[in-house]
């Protein structure tokens, strides 16, 4: 075992170490990666970190101390009043929800009704689970409505979930105001659409490729799905 604390990139490194190091960094980058990252960052209306630096410099420490104390008090009061349920959800939380087997989760004991998007009561192909289930662990507590969607009579039935959150429970501001033009996330487990209706943020996760989301958008807009 090495007993020095220095970086391993030294002449003493064994042949095995060198070969593994070479192989470890040999990961091809996807074409267009940085372009997509720039697009995602620009689409997210949060203050860039460079601006944050300038703001940080402008603060003097006594003011920061007072501000920190005030923020801590407000956070403590909010935590005392609302507990962990008030935590805002992030993309990572939705990713985690998307990977859960919702059928194994208990129904929400509070009986809270989850709002549904406008027009979804009679949306062709959409079946919303009647009773929301509750996803709860040490950091998260959120009611989720399972759903299934079939684009047309011959199409495959895909599963998914619907979240309806007060805007304070989503980590960033959402500009999109309808399912026809939502913010979209593409992941290995499926496709999500995020949009707002009034003060409610809807997150619809479909465990399917983006074409199914497009079919849902068509259905929601009242157009025929072939």
């Amino acid at each position, binding site marked *: *075992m*090495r*007993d020095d*604390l*220095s*970086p*391993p*990139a030294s002449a003493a490194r*064994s*042949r*095995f*170490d060198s*070969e*593994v*190091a*070479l*192989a*470890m*960094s*040999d*990961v091809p*980058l*996807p074409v267009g*990666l*940085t372009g*997509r*990252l*720039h697009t*995602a*960052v620009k689409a*997210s209306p*949060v*203050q*860039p*970190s*460079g601006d*944050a*630096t300038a*703001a*940080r*410099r402008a603060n003097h420490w006594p003011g920061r101390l007072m501000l920190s104390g005030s923020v801590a008090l407000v956070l403590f009061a909010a935590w005392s009043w609302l507990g962990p349920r008030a935590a805002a959800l*992030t*993309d*990572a*939380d939705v*990713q*985690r929800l998307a*990977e*859960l087997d919702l059928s194994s989760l208990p129904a929400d004991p509070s009986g809270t009704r989850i709002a549904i998007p406008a027009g979804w009561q009679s949306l062709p192909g959409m079946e919303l689970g009647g009773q929301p289930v509750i996803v709860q*662990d*040490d*950091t998260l507590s959120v009611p989720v409505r399972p759903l299934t969607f079939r684009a047309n009579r011959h199409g495959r039935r895909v599963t998914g979930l619907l979240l309806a959150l007060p805007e304070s429970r989503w*980590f*960033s501001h959402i500009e999109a105001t309808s399912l026809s033009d939502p913010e979209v*996330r*593409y*992941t*290995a487990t499926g496709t999500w659409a995020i949009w707002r209706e009034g003060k409610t943020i809807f997150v619809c996760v479909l465990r399917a490729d983006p074409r199914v989301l497009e079919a849902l958008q068509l259905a929601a807009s009242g157009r025929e799905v072939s």
Partner: protein
Amino acid sequence: MADGMPLPTMDQLIEQHAALLYRYAYRLTGNSHEAEDLTQQTYLLVQQRGHQLRDVQALRGWLLTIVRNVFLKSRRHRGRGRSLDDIDEPTVAEESWDSPVDREQLQQALLELSEEFRSPLVLYYFEDFSYQQIADHMEVPIGTVMSRLSRAKTFLKKRLTAGEECAATPPLRANRSKVLTTRTALSHG
């Protein structure tokens, strides 16, 4: 040091570090789509919380910590992979190694390890992190890092040796270290 240096803009962060974050994410997940998703989520969090970084010189480690925390959070409900806590540390010097490492075999071996062994291994080889840096990154004592690295390297070497089917398969360990509960990079002041 830190307060005198401006933070890079988001554009600069992407241009300078996207490849590093993606490669680290790929080694953690073994999947290009998940790796890109992890990288994107990391940048969105950085954009939201970049002002929390106090030491610009620690930027690279801070970014990698966010990647790891997002990864851990996404995997909380999945299987753990193999822990090596019961395998003996090597007692003899490393013998010679004269063949190139198969890339696919390497990734497969990494994915067989539990995250607490996989991350230090990736950081050690891929990013030339010192033991202390890895310990800081994983929030564990340096002795733990050295022990895990030693065991992980032993496992890796056996796994990559042609014809050897990892006969000394280490048993799974049931208890979980505190690794899964570390989310500090997302909330550091």
